[in-house]
């Protein structure tokens, strides 16, 4: 078996419900993006943290049903996130069914942690602007700015030269700035 670091998201997700190392690796890869997704939706760090917890709890429950033939792992994860958000809105409180079901306790969350979430995940506008970028620029910006990876490393993964990655990041950030200015 490959080390977790080399496994694809899909491989990790397949075993995330029964193998804590796979779950941990998957969690680390996606935590920032999921929090950013919820920050965009609700604009508050504490809510985003709770929604994130519910989403991953639901993922632990449902990972056994995941079938890579039906779609990529991030699609599955964000499908859950969208459902968690919709149900929480309908219920008027953050959904907690999955957390109860798998026995998750109270999440340790102080003001500092909330500030860190809000600062790192960026403002809702920035995430909205990020979402509007073409796929190549968006991936480059996420990997470089959000995931703090080096240009060389990203280039190797995206199968292009580091200068191309730099160009995509730079163009992406410029487009985001313009987009934020245009927002109502």
């Amino acid at each position, binding site marked *: 078996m490959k080390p977790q670091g080399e496994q694809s998201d899909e491989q990790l997700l397949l075993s995330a419900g029964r193998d804590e190392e796979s779950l941990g690796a998957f969690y680390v890869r996606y935590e920032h993006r999921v929090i950013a997704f919820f920050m965009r939706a609700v604009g508050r760090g504490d809510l985003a943290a709770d929604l994130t*917890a519910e989403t991953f709890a639901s993922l632990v429950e449902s990972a056994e049903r995941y079938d890579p033939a039906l779609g990529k792992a991030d699609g599955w994860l964000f499908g859950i996130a969208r459902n968690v958000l919709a149900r929480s809105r309908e219920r008027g409180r953050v959904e907690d069914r999955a957390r109860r079901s798998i026995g998750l306790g109270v999440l340790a969350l102080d003001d500092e942690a909330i500030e860190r979430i809000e600062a*790192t995940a960026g403002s809702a506008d920035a995430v909205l602007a990020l979402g509007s970028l073409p796929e190549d620029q968006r991936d480059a910006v996420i990997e470089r700015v959000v995931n703090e990876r080096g240009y060389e490393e990203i280039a190797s993964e995206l199968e292009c030269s580091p200068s191309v990655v730099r160009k995509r990041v730079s163009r992406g950030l410029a487009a985001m700035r313009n987009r934020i200015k245009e927002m109502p």
Partner: protein
Amino acid sequence: MTPLLPDLERQLRQAVRDRRAEQSAQRPARPKRRAMALVAVAAAIAIAAVIALAAGIGAGPSLSEAQALERAAEAAGRGLAAPTLTPGEYWYVRSVTAGTTGYRALGSAALIQSRQTTEIWQSTDGSGRERTVNDGLPLFFGTPVARARFRREEARAPKPVPVDELLPHSTGFRSPLGILTYSQVQALPSTPEAMLHAIRHAAEHSLTELRLQAPESPVAEESLAQTELESIAGILADLPLSPQQRAATFRMTEKLPGVIYIPHVTDALGRSGAALASNGLSYRFIDGGGELSKPVSVREELIFDPSTGVLLAQQRALLSSIPSVGLPAGYAVQYTAYVSSGVVTSTTERFVKRGLTEVVAPAAPAPTCTNEGPPPTQLVAGAIPSTLASRFAVLRRPQTSEELNLANGSISQTLATPGLGRVLRSSIRILKTHPAGVRYYMVVGYRRSFADLGRSAGCSPPVTASEHRLELAAQKAARRAAVRPVLCVVAAEGPVSFPCTEPSELDMIGYETSDYGRPPAVVTGIIPDGVTKIEAVYPHGRTVLVPVTDNLVIYRVHLPAPNAAPKEVRWLRSNGEVLRRITSR
């Protein structure tokens, strides 16, 4: 990269370790049991434990059966148990519900039946109380040794917390016909034909939506006959019907195909009555392991007292035994037995049977928990914001008389969408009927923020410390939240809807699927003027071309949940020119 929520990662890892340990021990998972107890408060969910795969269609009731039914209808029509609810009074219903779930437990296949008692108080203004307590230990069907071991373990296990909530803003009487206000209950049909129409329409719609929303759910495999029988049970038991409405409900059963009359039946509580039944159905048990997951034959029964027309129970009885777990033929694997109902003057009173009559008696003390729920959506006056009216022709056309009626009345259940706090009267538009038969409305309103949603005060157990923080911060957030109008499309019936969108978010395409993530997904898009059709591009080059009608596109796509959102959407003019390309986020 440092995790932002290291505590969450630690807890998730622990949960996975626990799950693996439980699975390897091959015993019932405690959290699952607890979840089952929580959800089993709704009879509909309990029904999910078993399913019907196919209905045996036979002849209608014979003449003598029809006469027996007519006697029950006449008795109901004479006014027995016919309450009139006035302000300050509550319609009280107590029922006992049981469902059977399959398990792979203690090294072999087994079945567990848990039982809950539910009491519901409901007033004309929508306020009420709901209380559900577990009724003893669950029954375990297996070998004597396994049963003894299960009982020992279960006796030591923490007991489920009873659900007991005051509901000051409950939206109305829950029934198979939807959530109804008291005036809507009073307006229900009092002729068999109209009642049949209402029940059949609701049953068909319910099945369609279930199959769309949760195609893997066993409930979605129910037959129409079974859903109709359940609907009749729900209507007779849960709603304060007039004698005429009760009589009409009995008389309409003559018109149901495949429903037979059984003169002598005993319900799960040992009470005798007559039954309307549908044979030839088969069940499978959720989470069943091995042989128990195979369907078993059952009969859906609606048991009533033929002399009074009072409904006693709805149940599903085995037509043949399951020897491996010692269940005999005739055993009710799922049932809701209606114990008592009547009008009381407070939520600390209940109605109990004493001899042949029913008397008022004290109920459990009022709960400390108040679940306020979201405040009702309000219809408000005001012009449609020009940013929306200028871009959507459907909002510029005059309202039809039907739309004006909706706008000038009280808000309907449909338009009271949970996400909206306010809806502009002037914006209500009925869209052209969808081919699947579901009607859609477009409305402009204002989103309900998390902050102005209802609170649950004193309800236990609290979920997280951060949720408590949420409640404290709610008012502060509400004050600073920007209020922007949003454009929404809501389905006339059922849960399918397009999330409300701000004008700046128009490049989003919405889609709705079930939790099960199975196709089809319903894809919806609100499209501004000038676009006559859209082309949606999916993975592997598959494209879908959909015409825009009333500024709306809506279609079903047979792709699983994550991929149901198109990779790219092109807005096309009538001459085929691409007005805009939107790539997936």
